[in-house]
């Protein structure tokens, strides 16, 4: 394993120190239990939006803390959900009296840990609501799985709900909006090479020189199918089709297309893939109204990509366009 680290057991804490130094105008890192909070938290009278999950997906979630997006992020160890303490500490720091919305990616660990924290907070009379995001169409949502995973759609959800909270929507309205986003967003990812978790020291799965893993998660979990490597056309089509079928997205739909690098795929390739996805959508009469391209929901240095489609309407588009000021997403005044 080759990494720019000192000790696998202190990677997250050391990285958070650097994050704070790099963005002290935006965020503060509270140590023990570790929480990244907006520098001006709590914002009185605003619904606080809190997310979190294992580390190794940067810039999600710490790089998404700031005005117009998250009030706090709870970073767990690499690829391991945070503990209830962290979530509780986050809730305490950011609760501005208008309630707290927890955005949880649908993994057993994340759900259980956030659930525990929510129970504890409610016992303290803090109004807490939870939204679980499960946009990964690679996983069948059935009795036979833990349900779909939360992947790329999480960033879109956090941006849109963050904007709603910022404009003053109350907790019930934020929850309703979040449910609307979750209902209209779908993702699918693939990998050409596995990431290496610092405390494991070797790649999370082994792929042959001619293989790719399709339907991959963001934690180095193997995907649903191992296939021969394909070219960009084939890869993009294979990601897009199940997404389109699932919702389904149909002719005339207005969408946000999010082309995400898993970390190790360079922008040169990512833009190439994005161009293909745009063409395939145009061919079907689906209107790409907004786009996001880059490494936003990563899996350490994993080579690969994911596509996410969100169905837009005027309100969602307006909330997407609303000002945001975080380390990773920044626009508007």
């Amino acid at each position, binding site marked *: 394993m080759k990494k720019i680290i000192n000790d696998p057991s202190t990677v997250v804490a050391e990285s958070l120190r650097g994050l704070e130094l790099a963005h002290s105008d935006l965020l503060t890192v509270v140590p023990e239990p570790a929480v990244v909070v907006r520098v001006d938290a709590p914002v009185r009278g605003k619904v606080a939006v809190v997310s979190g999950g294992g580390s190794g997906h940067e810039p999600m979630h710490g790089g998404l803390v700031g005005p117009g997006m998250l009030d706090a992020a709870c970073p767990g160890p690499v690829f391991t959900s945070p503990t209830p303490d962290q979530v509780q500490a986050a809730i305490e720091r950011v609760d501005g009296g208008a309630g707290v919305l927890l955005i949880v990616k649908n993994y057993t660990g994340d759900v259980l*840990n956030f659930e525990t924290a929510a129970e504890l907070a409610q016992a303290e009379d803090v109004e807490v609501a939870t939204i679980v995001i499960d946009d990964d169409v690679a996983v069948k949502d059935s009795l036979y*799985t833990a349900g779909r995973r939360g992947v790329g759609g999480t960033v879109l959800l956090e941006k849109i709900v963050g904007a709603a909270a910022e404009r003053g929507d109350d907790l019930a309205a934020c929850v309703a909006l979040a449910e609307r986003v979750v209902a209209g967003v779908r993702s699918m990812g693939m990998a050409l090479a596995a990431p290496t978790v610092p405390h494991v020291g070797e790649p999370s799965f082994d792929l042959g020189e001619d293989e790719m893993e399709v339907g991959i*998660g963001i934690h180095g979990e193997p995907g649903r199918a191992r296939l021969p490597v394909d070219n960009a056309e084939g890869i993009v089509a294979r990601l897009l089709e199940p997404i389109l079928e699932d919702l389904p997205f149909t002719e005339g739909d207005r969408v946000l297309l999010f082309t995400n690098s898993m970390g190790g795929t360079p922008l040169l390739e990512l833009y190439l893939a994005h161009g293909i996805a745009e063409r395939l959508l145009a061919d079907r009469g689906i209107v790409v109204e907004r786009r996001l391209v880059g490494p936003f929901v990563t899996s350490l240095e994993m080579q690969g990509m994911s596509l996410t489609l969100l169905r837009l309407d005027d309100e969602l588009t307006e909330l997407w366009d609303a000002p945001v000021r975080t380390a990773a997403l920044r626009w508007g005044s």
Partner: protein
Amino acid sequence: MGCTAADVAAAVRAAAEVVAEHRDELVELDRAIGDGDHGENLRRGFNAVVSALDTSTPDTPGAVLKLVAKTLISTVGGAAGPLYGTAFLRAATALGDAAELGPAEVTTAIEAALGGVVARGKAAVGDKTMVDALDPAVRAATATSGSVAEVLAAAAAGAQAGAASTVPLVARKGRASYLGERSADHLDPGARSTALLLASFARSAGAGQ
């Protein structure tokens, strides 16, 4: 023999060593069908448990298990953190203020632990989770009449067999379920760690006889 708070604390410390010894094995099992952190998560958690026991000495078996529960919940994360945390918490609650444990209390505690895991995780037998180890452990314990050591030995044997039974299963809960059919032919890491913990507790009880 009786089983006091000190005995339980000693058993937990011994279990922490077992977890550390098997860290890499559990990582490897989880790497195959999960995300490779189970061994590291438990090591971190049981390390913290040992530290907690170094600085406070709870005076009943139930209080020891409650400290274990709270520490695991706040340090393990992942699926295993809340699940093991709830298991130890329910066991602690079931034991109440009892100063010493006999075989009946031990059986009650394991039963409560299983109840907690199922309540939190909603897994059934055959879903390829720690429930597949814990459920036969409870059944074996219930069927045994004998000393604490004998009850725990039966539970450990049940857990061991139950863990082994997860190998051919297709996972229906937890991260391994994403793999579908590809999750078969692998030992479930959580079932394995449950079997390891119970085996360690049984050894501690046996040594204390």
